[in-house]
């Protein structure tokens, strides 16, 4: 199966047809919701942090979860068709037609945090003659850094095509001033393996939640968790389950339960 990034530029790939198909698929809905919850878990926001940017927001599947969690959000996307679907679904966030590779159009210190679900790998594409991935990654991370408040955080689930892309993404983030790394969930499963870029713009009051993630050590896939780490994760999970149960009872759309065990993560920079 070829990657969408190899087929056409994003605004062409996500045309009217594909945008509708994408959004209507319950499989897609579940997996995007699950990854959004995981991104929020990694972000570990304090209860007072509310203003969030969703980069590559598409039709609002990720944004709807931000609304459920009580956040105000702004979404940006390059595909008019995806945004049209978002409009029709009456999502609560503000929608911007905007290319992340040309810069984040917000003044310094605007957002508490930013998320991006399944989008930033598109920055590695050279679709047109003047799309230089290196320049675009640089512009993206520099302006994103600026638009976050000091201590602001960014978590992006993404699909790197290869190690080279992984490296160009993390090094552009680092050059822009971000600290952090890449968390890999389900490393041993070819199908479920997921990459999360987890970044902080300056010192955060509430650190990102890297429970069980060893940022400095080398890869230790079979590493046993300490009792304390196990306990931390237990409580986090129980907490999420409780919240999801609450939302279910309120009749809201809630993602299926899953097992985000704190397994196998790999340090990056």
């Amino acid at each position, binding site marked *: 199966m070829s990657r969408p990034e190899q087929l056409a530029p994003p605004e062409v790939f996500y045309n009217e047809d594909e945008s509708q198909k994408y959004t209507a698929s319950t499989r897609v809905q579940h997996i995007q919701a699950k990854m959004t919850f995981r991104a929020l878990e990694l972000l570990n926001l304090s209860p007072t942090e*509310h203003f969030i940017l969703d980069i590559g927001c598409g039709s609002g599947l990720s944004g709807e979860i931000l609304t459920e969690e009580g956040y105000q959000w702004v979404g940006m996307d390059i595909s008019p068709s995806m*945004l049209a679907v978002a*409009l029709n679904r009456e999502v609560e966030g*503000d929608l911007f*037609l905007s290319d992340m590779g*040309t*810069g984040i159009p*917000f*003044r310094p210190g*605007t957002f508490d945090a930013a998320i991006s679900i399944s989008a930033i790998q598109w920055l590695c594409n050279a679709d047109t003659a003047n799309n230089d991935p290196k320049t675009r990654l640089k512009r993206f991370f520099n302006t994103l850094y600026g638009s976050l408040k000091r201590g602001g955080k960014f978590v992006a689930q993404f699909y790197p095509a290869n190690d080279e892309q992984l490296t160009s993404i993390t090094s552009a983030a680092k050059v822009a001033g971000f600290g952090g790394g890449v968390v890999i969930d389900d490393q041993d499963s070819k199908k479920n393996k997921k990459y999360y870029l987890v970044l902080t713009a300056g010192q955060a009051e509430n650190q990102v939640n890297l429970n069980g993630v060893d940022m400095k050590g080398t890869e230790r896939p079979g590493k046993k968790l300490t009792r304390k780490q196990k306990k931390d994760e237990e409580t986090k999970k129980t907490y999420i389950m409780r919240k999801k149960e609450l939302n279910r009872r309120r009749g809201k759309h809630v993602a299926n339960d899953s097992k985000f065990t704190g397994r196998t993560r790999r340090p990056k920079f």
Partner: protein
Amino acid sequence: MKFLTTNFVRCPISKCDNSLKAFPLQYKNCELIQEELEFNPEFLANILDRLNWEAIIAVAGDLGNDSLPPTKPENVDPKDPENEQLLKDLHTLLIETQITEGEMHCGECGHIYYIKSSIPNFLLPPHLV
């Protein structure tokens, strides 16, 4: 686009990066609607710190509202019932007032960004990237 967002959005063209005139954008020929949305006093009290009140006044003026208080309300405790009316007014202005059609002009480079069906278009023509 919510009125709130006008207090944060700026011209993304790189030669305007360091210009003080690239924010706030100037709003022209705008159509507005009021949309009823959930009242969240904590969010409002929290975002208040971050608001640039001069820009709020400038943009409200662009949109035909010249009756805002000249200084920003400070230290607003969302739990204090005395603040409820103030926060409700802020909610009406910032969250429920939305621009559905219109133009945003950059004061530095003059570029015009259009808002259509509530969505501002920030795609840049290749020569401005």
